[in-house]
């Protein structure tokens, strides 16, 4: 029984960190919240797993923790120093309003997952809505923020949401695919980082809002 309790706490952790991401404007704070989310995320499969912990699951959790908890935030911190941009100045959607929007999205996620009438498996009762919710927060961050770096963080939150959903099925998912997913996410962020460096050196700003010259 206590498994699901622990899992519920960690999932709640993810949902709260999402709200934190929506609220804060400082980039460094955002990256720290990302780390917390990564930690709670990698803990969930262990919490959900049946008593006999297969070695494969532990290895998976450790690698996720390493990639999402340590390497990616370090990359992002280096990018922040390089482009020495501290804060997200007046985004499209003000912070208070983003939180309100976050709550509405949460409600919408519960409504959708309720509609999905998943089978008796209890875990999916709160797992699906939170996965959908972090997906939507990721999208919201990308849509409502100006700085390219914040958009990368938004993308990572989306990735975590999808990963969270995968976590419930982590037991069956072949290891190779999980590794592939992690590798791809890492390389994606890596290349986004390089592009941001280039944009910064070319434009000496990373306001995606001003990056809108190509249009019809």
């Amino acid at each position: 029984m206590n498994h699901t309790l622990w899992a519920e706490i960690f999932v709640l952790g993810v949902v709260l960190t999402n709200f934190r991401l929506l609220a804060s404007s400082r980039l460094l704070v955002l990256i720290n919240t990302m780390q917390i989310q990564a930690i709670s995320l990698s803990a969930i499969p262990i919490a959900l797993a049946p008593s006999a912990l297969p070695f494969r699951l532990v290895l998976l959790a450790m690698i996720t923790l390493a990639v999402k908890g340590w390497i990616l935030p370090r990359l992002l911190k280096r990018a922040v120093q390089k482009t020495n941009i501290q804060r997200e100045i007046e985004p499209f959607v003000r912070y208070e309003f983003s939180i309100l929007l976050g709550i509405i999205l949460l409600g919408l996620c519960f409504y959708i997952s309720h509609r999905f009438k998943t089978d008796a498996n209890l875990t999916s009762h709160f797992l699906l809505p939170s996965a959908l919710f972090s997906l939507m927060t990721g999208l919201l961050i990308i849509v409502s923020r100006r700085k390219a770096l914040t958009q990368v963080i938004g993308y990572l939150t989306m990735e975590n949401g999808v990963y969270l959903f995968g976590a419930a099925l982590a037991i069956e998912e072949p290891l190779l695919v999980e590794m592939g997913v992690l590798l791809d996410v890492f390389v994606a962020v890596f290349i986004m980082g390089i592009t941001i460096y280039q944009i910064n050196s070319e434009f000496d700003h990373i306001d995606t809002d001003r990056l809108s010259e190509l249009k019809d």
Partner: protein
Amino acid sequence: MMTDTLLISVAILVLGGICGAFLSSSGRQGAFWGMAVCLAGALLSIIPAVNILWTGRTISYQLGWSIPFGSFTIAADPLSALFIIIISSVCAICAVYGVGYLKAYEGYKNMGVAWCFYNLLFASMLLVVMARNGVLFIMAWEGMSLSSFFLVMFEHEKPEVRQAGWTYMIAAHFGAACLMALFVLLAGSDINLDFNRMSSPSSPFMAGVLFILAILGFGAKAGFMPLHVWLPEAHPAAPSHVSAVMSGVMIKTGIYGLLRIIPMLGPPELWWGWTLLIIGTTSGILGVLFALPQHDLKRLLAYHSIENIGIICLGLGLWLIGTATNYPLIAVLGLTGGLLHVCNHSIFKSLLFLGAGVIKHATHTLDIDRLGGLQKSMPKTALMFLIGAVSICGIPPFNGFVSEFLIYLGGYTLVSNTASSGHAIAAGVIALISLALIGGLAATCFTKVFGIIFLGAPRSESAAQAAEASPGMWFPMAILAAFCIMIGIAAPLCIRMVLPAVRSLHHFPAAELTAKVFPLLSPISLVAGILFCFIIAVTLVRRWLISRQPVVTGPTWDCGYIAPNARMQYTASSFAQPVIDMFRYILRPQRHFHMEADDFPKQIRFSTHTFDLFRTCLFEPLFRLSDTAAVWLHRLQQGRNQLYILYIAITVMALLVLTVR
């Protein structure tokens, strides 16, 4: 043996044309090579066609061709044979003419390519007329449109020529799209689009839909009224020998298509005949009405092609009404009249276009109001043009009258036949009135054209020094003029050529057919003969009388004006002004008047201009509207990343909420 010659002729034209393009870009050899290939192809296709017409047999040829739904099946029955003869003869004559005409462009235009597309056009027209498979038909159809597009774009430096090419390209593509829909619907579930395997549509509603599609598809090429917009722009843009081929023969492939498809749609209904009749009336009357105020000779002739297509449609309309109300005589009269008018029109229209080419060659302008008095400097061309002009107005001793006479007779028999219903009689009257009006208007238009261009005093410098065309140019015109007179006089003989085609379309007992139609035309040639005897007699009397009297030349009597000059003559627009004024609500002529005057008027500029009604009130607003709507919608792509991701998020949410139940 016959089919191979037909196939060989098409092959010669295609291969000859293409290698002509690469071989010789310089003027002389390119032109002669092109003409030689064209003449060879024409010869090889006329002989079997005449044989088929004479014997009335149908020959077909099947070749494997692994294209989905496609098979290379071609066949030539009397109807195709008739069209093959028209196409080959007109193309050959225009090729001979073209060599002389294109001499002026030798310097800066690539002759090889021009002749290559000319031969490709000829080959694709032959293929269209012989194709018996949907895919092959559309391939040949587009091939025809493409090669004529490149010929229209011959002088593509001028922006209006490019505009004409663009409009022509769209009309051709619209036609091809409708044909694609037509053939696919006609084939039904059958995997192959062969004509002989196409069954007639199940429900009359389906047959009606197919009929409308056929009208749209073939009408776009033939130039039925609302779809004619490209014709008055494309034909003047093309070199004259090409516009002669396009106007004379290419738009007839549209009529051929209709004739080929309608019997496949099962028994026709009365409203089909009515549609064709209404199209014929509108195309006819409006075509000649819009021709009247034109200043450019080739634009005027292009509008006249629309008018003559209208007359052909009247004939076909009577044919459908005749079959619908199963009154075979009217059907036969309408169909024979229509088919004969197809032949006649391709002869005198190409004659007139070649004449226009000579005028352009000699005076470098086609603006009617700049010409005048060319009769004295170009007597031979003037005579040819006169014969063409008189026959296009359908005046008796020439060939235009013969086909209109048959259509008239169809109308009158429809009207005078007591058994026909009110519907049919109304249709008959409409046909008669429109034919009469078209005849009158055409006479007005062509008296204006011939009178202003060839007679009176020359109105401009270039008209004054015009020189007679070289024999290479007026000799083909002489052949065409001879055809006009020959068909006019010996009408019953020429009917024998058209009757097998009529019989293949309308299964009418042969004996009765010749018995009924033949005697109708023999009195006409008799009376024409009598007319010629009278003319000879009166000329002799005149010569005898005048020989004894003094003949003096002096200035024209102008009520005592001191110095009448050429500009005081009647111009084209003033000649046509009363008639245009009568129809001003349709034509909407625009007058531009500008006068510089301080005390006395120094200089006055006055010009009238009429725009094509359908172009200005139907197509231009439609295109402008869609352009503004599209440009307004371009705002969707503003360039901001966040917006694009918002689109994706909204799509996902919407789909999840709406579709997953």
